């Protein structure tokens, strides 16, 4: 059997998730790993939107906010199990993405960027100001997912850090699997066609606005689930999760690692999650170093870090 790029990517991810813990000197590294996977999941959504369909969203953190606050609020107010709250958050994010995207994505150009920017800021404002519901800028407690307790009853006793490391890792791999399947499907091919040229795609019969809308809705679900995972892991959430900076972070991670490739984008998420931890010695220069890394990548490695490196390794000069 020939190793397809899809299987290769999934194998690499699975191996990384399974093997790296053997090199962890302390439990703290599980936390960093879990954060990388949560970010990796959100960024996989960006790959579908930006890498496949060529659209830019500057408000994806808003969906992460919806997913996160769904886990905080639905169990308390609606009596839902936190796992169902994740689903509810994803459905709400998808519905909102559909509502916002439907009129906007009929237009060409950067309208989605501007509209999503406004949407993200609005969600963040609602979370900050509707104190009766969200308890405002100070944040709100999130109930326990309870899965760790279930595993314990089955005889699998994981620490909190270990549990979230493996759980987030598995969800991220599932997300990557879905994204890679989409890539190879007719929809994925049509998306890439419209990325190349909207007019050409339309000429050969691709329903451009419907496809762009699909990509936007799917990527919103990814962001929402990542927000839910973050909230459940931290057992606490503040409106920062929906903040503008978080949206920018997601796009930056994808672009840095390579927005056209799932593995590349996850690689970017890994680097941008790790850097602040490595750079604590230079905490005051952190932003500067991040900016510098970003600039260098944009100038010298335009496809993003991973695809450029892989190409160098293969030695193909195309």
């Amino acid at each position: 059997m020939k190793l397809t790029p899809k299987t290769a990517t999934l194998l690499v991810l699975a191996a990384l998730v399974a093997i790296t813990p053997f090199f962890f000197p302390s439990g703290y590294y599980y936390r960093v790993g879990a954060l990388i996977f949560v970010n990796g999941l959100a960024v996989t959504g960006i790959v579908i939107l930006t890498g496949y369909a060529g659209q830019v969203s500057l408000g994806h953190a808003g969906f992460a906010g919806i997913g996160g606050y769904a886990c905080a609020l639905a169990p308390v107010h609606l009596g839902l199990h936190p796992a169902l709250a994740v689903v509810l958050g994803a459905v709400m994010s998808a519905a909102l993405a559909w509502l916002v995207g439907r009129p906007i994505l009929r237009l060409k150009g950067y309208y989605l960027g501007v509209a999503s920017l406004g949407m993200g800021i609005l969600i963040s404002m609602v979370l900050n100001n509707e104190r009766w519901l969200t308890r405002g800028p100070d944040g709100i407690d999130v109930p326990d997912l309870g899965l760790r307790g279930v595993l314990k009853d089955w005889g699998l006793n994981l620490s909190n850090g270990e549990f979230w490391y493996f759980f987030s890792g598995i969800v991220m791999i599932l997300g990557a699997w879905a994204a890679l399947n989409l890539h190879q499907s007719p929809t994925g091919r049509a998306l890439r066609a419209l990325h190349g040229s909207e007019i050409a795609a339309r000429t050969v019969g691709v329903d451009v606005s419907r496809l762009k809308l699909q990509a936007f809705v799917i990527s919103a679900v990814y962001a929402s689930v990542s927000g839910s995972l973050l909230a459940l892991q931290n057992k606490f959430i503040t409106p920062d999760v929906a903040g503008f900076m978080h949206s920018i972070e997601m796009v930056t991670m994808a672009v840095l690692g390579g927005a056209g490739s799932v593995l590349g984008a996850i690689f970017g998420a890994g680097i941008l999650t790790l850097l602040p931890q490595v750079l604590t010695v230079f905490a005051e220069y952190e932003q500067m170093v991040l900016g510098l890394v970003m600039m260098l990548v944009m100038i010298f490695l335009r496809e993003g870090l991973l695809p450029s490196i892989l190409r160098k390794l293969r030695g193909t000069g195309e």
Partner: protein
Amino acid sequence: MNRLTTTAIATLMALGLAPAAQAEIKIGATLSATGPASFLGDPEAKTLEMLVEEVNAAGGINGEMLELVMYDDGGDPNKARTFATRLVEDDEVAAIIGGTTTGTTMSIIPVAEDAEIPFISLAGAVDIIDPVKAWVFKTPHTDRMACQKIFEDMQKRGVTKIGMISGTDGFGASMQAQCKGVVGDYGIEIVADETYDPKDADMTPQLTNIKNTAGIQAVLNPGFGQGPSIVTRNYKQLAVGLPLYQSHGVASKGFIDLAGVEAAEGVRLPAAALLVADILPDSDPQKAVVTAYRDGFEKKTGTPVSTFGGHAYDAFMILKGALEKAGGEPAAIRDAIEGTTGYVGTGGIVNMTAEDHLGLDLTAFKMLEIKNGDWTIVE
């Protein structure tokens, strides 16, 4: 490129290895020294650095040197939680000081509780210690106490009907809610309730509404940052002519400068003794402590002292007291912190109990009135 990488790695390693000299008790801190809350976190970080230096120069605690592991979370609760995990799991500290904001504190709490490491927060909200959590303490007064102090003073002046104008930021909104919760205890009624966005440049419409409400005898403005200065200026321009109360959130000289000496005249606000170190009577038990801290901080950093640095001072001194008594075991440290009694700090006199992990009462606040651009104590 290769040489550059090697140099960078060598530098990183040198920086990482340098402070590892013979430290025996490790204490951790995650503070918001940069970002939107840096005006709180920066003096806190400087205070901790100064105090650890002082303690080590004086021979450490019971002969053991202190090592401070400090991270900057930039005010991001998610980062704060990661750094707290790092402090607990990787650096293996004996106790954590930090959580500059309520948001960062609330995300550190589960980590400290799970790992059973004592944690002293520097944030304001009453939720941090109410309900009491075994491993969590805090040093700053709560906004509920500020409300009580203000209402006590209003009551003395015979005020029964007030207007409130609150900021919609975390501080203003939380204090607004707390004040509404306790106002009934003082026989006072809120007859006008207005809000403003912290970025607003003019509060005249809200103040006009308050001014036109019948029977108002005083106005209270929970908020911090520039909002309260603008309220104070507009208040003067509208010639409302009733007593104006500000919160402890603006207890700094910067507020008087921004509002203007003329507009700030007669404004009252509750504040910690640290702010008025010079005019405290010599009989005041806090006088010696606050003067010493202020002089030390200003000499070391060249910047004026703030109550926020004072919260870090109190947290460190309470922890130091516990370490002297209990040694380096987290559980023993926790018990010793809970047993703190009669500690005289910058924020007041602290008497902790199993039910009270703050240990301050209303005497911790002084009621101040601004006269001729300076503070005076109201008694």
